[in-house]
């Protein structure tokens, strides 16, 4: 049953607003983890970990994907549907690339002796970057749903709210990753 419909135009759509609140709560989770990292780095047996270069490539991927999803939103609003579909596919591809590169980065760390045992930055790296990857995976699932809808949906979609929610979320996980990477390099 659809009960929520268009509200007054100058008010934010409830779904968009809910996303911002969700972002606030995700920020709190990572704030908890990164402050635990800071506290722990002052304690005994702290070991520094070298950031794998894969993470630099993955950062490039996710930043570019942010641009492409913004482009997709723009072409959707201009009703340039073929360009919109292409850009969504590119975003999806870059998102999957990001996850693959993160996985390669983790494997590299694991092979270079960064394990769960011990008390270094490595443990945090797996957990924090892993949770971030889960959030990106959530975005990818939403992206796939939207792509499937545009490819096989019978009804034409004119409402851009869903896409706007997704692109805001996508930018958020992008910025979050950049923050985390700087954090790791700075304090790791």
């Amino acid at each position: 049953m659809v009960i929520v419909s268009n509200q007054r135009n100058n008010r934010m759509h409830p779904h968009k607003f809910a996303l911002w609140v969700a972002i606030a709560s995700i920020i709190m989770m990572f704030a908890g983890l990164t402050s635990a990292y800071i506290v722990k780095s002052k304690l005994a047996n702290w070991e520094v970990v070298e950031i794998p270069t894969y993470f630099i490539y993955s950062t490039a991927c996710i930043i570019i994907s942010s641009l492409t999803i913004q482009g997709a939103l723009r072409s959707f609003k201009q009703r340039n549907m073929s360009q919109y579909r292409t850009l969504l596919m590119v975003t999806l591809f870059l998102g999957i690339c990001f996850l693959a590169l993160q996985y390669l980065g983790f494997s590299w760390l694991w092979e270079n002796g960064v394990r769960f045992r011990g008390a270094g930055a490595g443990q945090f790296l797996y957990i924090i970057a892993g949770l971030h990857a889960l959030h990106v995976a959530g975005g990818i699932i939403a992206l796939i749903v939207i792509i499937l809808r545009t490819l096989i949906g019978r009804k034409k979609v004119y409402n851009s709210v869903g896409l706007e929610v997704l692109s805001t979320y996508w930018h958020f996980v992008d910025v979050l990753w950049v923050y985390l990477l700087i954090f790791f390099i700075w304090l790791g």
Partner: protein
Amino acid sequence: MNNESTIHVHGAEIETHEIHHDGNGHPHHKETFITKYIFSQDHKTISKQFLITGIIWAIVGGLFSVLFRLQLGYPGQSFAILETFFGKWAEGGQIKPEFYYALVTMHGTVMVFFVLTGGLSGTFANLLIPLQIGARDMASPLMNMLSYWFFFLASMIMLSSLFVETGPASGGWTSYPPLSALGQASIGSKIGMDLWITSMAMFVVSSLLGNLNYIATILNMRTKGMSMTRLPLTIWSLFFTAILGVLSFPVLLSGFILLLFDRNLGTSFYLSDIFVNGQILPNEGGSPILYEHLFWFLGHPEVYIVILPAMGMVSEILSINSRKPIFGYMAMIGSLFAICILALLVWAHHMFVSGMNPFLGSFFVLLTLLIAIPSSIKVFNWLTTIWRGNIRFTPAMLFAIGFVSLFISGGLTGIWLGNATIDIHIHDTVFVVAHFHIVMGVSAFFGMFAGVYHWFPKMYGRFMNNTLGYIHFWITFIGAYLIFWPMHYEGLAGVPRRYLDRSIWTSFNQFGDLNKVITIVTIVVFAVQLMFVFNFFYSIWKGRKVRTLNPWSATTLEWTTPVNPGHGNWVGEIPEVHRWAYDYSKDGRDFIPQTEPVGANETTEH
């Protein structure tokens, strides 16, 4: 009478897809039993689901406390009933010490999270937010439904942990490492602990989904004319509750994730230099204080998540039943806001004796004592609201007044505990138990009872039985004081918490009879709660029917809906709001509903 109408909200067209109303406001599109009562997206049904699940949990959690209280009052004595309930954990009718830990852990977890968070704000946020702000449902009914089902899943996991061979989690509701992080440390730290963490993670997801919705709904879906300062205080309190939940639960989740890794994958976030069961552990460099910080960053706001909805409902019920406007409406909002901010800044007052830097402690003492200011403002305003009012002593009103009494009594001992110097003496004694049970346990229950008696007519279209309500109130009220008041004296004398048998200390034997009295009163009070549950379920089907739209003569919007509102709440248009929620006894009129336009000759002050 099928008015498939186009409804105007905020001057823009809003389509009511798929809602076809008949005269009673019942949507009669295809609704099966499953979509109507089980996987329902109607906020009112979801609220009932939360309430009934909460009631079942309250019976479980309450029963645990009665049964271990039996052993506390009569140490060393055997009770057949204990073996009946607990089997091998109480062989020969005596609770085993390790199982006592499991019982207090589950009592705390169940009461704090599953009853007073899920059952209390889950119920009333769902019921009241759309009805009182004038919305047809939540911002996202689907997420709202998922919120309940995650709560249900969390409940099932927690329930299943009671039946595993090594018993449920027994590290206290706070689950401090290293006890909770090492399976070999105690029998209750094995699989029961993993189930506890998993269940709590599901609970966090449930509460985040719910809170997101509450915030988005309150800020974005108010009806025309319903400005923020015209909202009833219930909505304000639920709003701040949701903000606290959204900001603090994720931090708890990150603490739990690290704990899970420490338990199962050999990391050392919380572990260092440990010697357990004759074995030296390799873990080094971790710190349990890290967990305590992460836990109490939620743990402290959690007590406000529990108490704020009760405060909001009490404000509303006191005003309605005194036939007077709430005293100091803006001060009430301001103090809610101040409590909300301070709640996030005082967590370390739970850690004065944890080995935290004492200098840091002094800041937390200051911030903790500051909470006394907004709390006193609220108490003052409640008292001035009922002062010289034309009071109707309904069961809801009695419970609301009882709430104020308990909140004062429990709040005063908070000033003692908030001082690090006094806390060093009384920390981990039953003084603390008495303090938090009165100030956030029993008072939140009183707020919840007040809310249930007051809004039962809206939930089920019937009244609860008043006589049983009065019996329920007086016995619970007197009983609560009889149970917890003596604990203050015991705590000041040094009687510790978390011990099953204190008779080894001869100096505490003087409290033997007192402990028996507490136990007997506990049994009586618990029996009366079962009577309340009977009253609740009996009244759903057999209670006196509600004949008028507005049985309490209240001003707020929920009483403008049909007696049994369908999904969508209002038949036809959502009413427009023209005034605040507290126009009682104004200009010679008993009350003026929020929907009535302001008259030309009306006095302006409120």
